[in-house]
């Protein structure tokens, strides 16, 4: 059951009015333009026992994603494909609002939004992750760990997940005759990445859209809208989130704003893999 959040701190009216009236004039409380991202940084290999990992910062938001690649069984309806699992944990060290416990609806939505963008874009060629057809495949776990929450978890998580997948190496292994898979050690072969997927999320402030909303902007926004793009510029995922509505005619405007900005994120991703 989903419930209107009722235990969130109340935003002072004044701050709300300030942010809204600034937005109307095209500026933001932290001096950014409406369509400007905060600084993005990506640190690869941040979790040493993961097969791939990335620590992503967007402004003060910090998300660590770790990839584990393990042998397992395929789903019965896709016997010749590997398995992708995306999980997100809003661990309580990241925000005074996060409580310990199993993932709540926010964590589940976050994981599923990232999952779908990766899955539906065919970012990974799952058919190449088969060890023994119908029996054993690689199961790719992407665990998204939010460490510091200062807004726009969608984009930070999407980026951390994508970077961690690109960083990942399939473990060195051997398929034994009895159908078991022996892991020999760390590998060198990357995952079969076919597309790079990044996202741009807009905060919805009445009629105004702001790219990459910070936590205090999110607190006064009606909601947000997430657009994922592959590196050819196709839209590979959308999620309206929060109790906002959009003018029917403004939807394509929003999409265009996002599409004008996904290059920035993609550039940050590419840069991380150049060194």
């Amino acid at each position, binding site marked *: 059951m*989903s419930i*209107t959040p009722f235990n969130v701190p109340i935003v002072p009216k004044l701050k709300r009015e300030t942010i809204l009236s600034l937005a109307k004039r095209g500026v933001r409380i932290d001096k950014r333009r409406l369509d400007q991202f905060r600084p993005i940084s990506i640190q690869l290999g941040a979790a040493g026992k993961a097969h791939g990992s990335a620590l992503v910062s967007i402004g003060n938001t910090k998300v660590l994603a770790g990839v584990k690649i393990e042998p397992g069984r395929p789903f019965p309806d896709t016997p010749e494909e590997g398995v992708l699992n995306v999980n997100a944990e809003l661990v309580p060290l990241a925000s005074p609002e996060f409580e310990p416990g199993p993932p709540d609806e926010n964590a589940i939505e976050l994981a599923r939004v990232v999952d779908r963008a990766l899955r539906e874009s*065919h970012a990974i060629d799952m058919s190449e992750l088969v060890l023994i057809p119908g029996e054993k495949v690689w199961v790719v776990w992407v665990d998204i760990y939010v460490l510091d929450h200062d807004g726009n978890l969608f984009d930070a998580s999407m980026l951390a997940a994508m970077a961690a997948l690109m960083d990942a190496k399939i473990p060195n292994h051997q398929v034994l005759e009895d159908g078991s898979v022996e892991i020999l050690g760390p590998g060198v072969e990357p995952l079969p990445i076919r597309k790079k997927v990044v996202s741009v999320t807009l905060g919805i402030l009445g009629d105004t859209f702001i790219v990459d909303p910070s936590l205090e902007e999110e607190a006064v926004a009606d909601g947000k809208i997430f657009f994922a793009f592959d590196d050819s510029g196709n839209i590979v995922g959308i999620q309206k989130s929060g109790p906002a*509505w959009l*003018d029917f005619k403004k939807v394509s405007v929003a*999409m265009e704003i996002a599409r004008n900005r996904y290059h920035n994120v993609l550039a940050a991703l590419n840069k991380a893999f150049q060194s």
Partner: protein
Amino acid sequence: MSGGKSPVPLFKDGKRHDGRGPMDLRPIEMKVGVLNNANGSAWVKFGRTEVIAAAYGPREPPKFMSLPDRALLRCRYHMAPFSTDERKNPAPSRREIELSKVIREALETVVLTHLFPRTVIDVFVEVIQADGGTRTAAITAASLALADAGIPMKDLVAGIAVGKVDGHLVLDIDQIEDNYGEADMPVAGAVNLDKVVLLQLNGSLTPEEFNKAMYMAWEGIKKVYALQKKALEEKLRKEVNL
């Protein structure tokens, strides 16, 4: 979008696997006031997809669960174990948890919760049969149930999904088109207000396709909206006759 190959051709000679054209909706049925205990209820059918919705409230919330300035909205989207091809465990799946959130947030935009501070309004949707487009059928039924319960709303909410199959954009996709198609984009809107209240995309679309798909969705939503109005009037007519 499971990526496999469809057992039937999804688009051939301008027709879809069930004979529909790209803009054709499935046969839609709606009935308001189908349950006795709920303050409001509705039953909605899109082809073989069938849902029931009930609305309760405004009523007293559980302890410590209230807002001083408006009603809480609680929403559950849930699938009956026998609604799917394989029996579904009745415990809420991650998908059901997400869809409950998405539907609640869509309804929050239209329900006049500020009229009922310190109360709770509940919307429960049960999917009886799932054959594609359950979330848009669910929100359509939910908004009817709220209306039937007399809960003031700025507008009704109607929903429909656009899909892409074999490269063609089509309206109101069913399960087979969802499973083997390239994209599923559920949209719900408040027609009178020209507002989009629910929007998701699973799959891949070019920007041009996306814009076209939005327009197709809106055409579909207007039709669904008209059927909602009719179903509410029918209920009213019956009540007056009594």
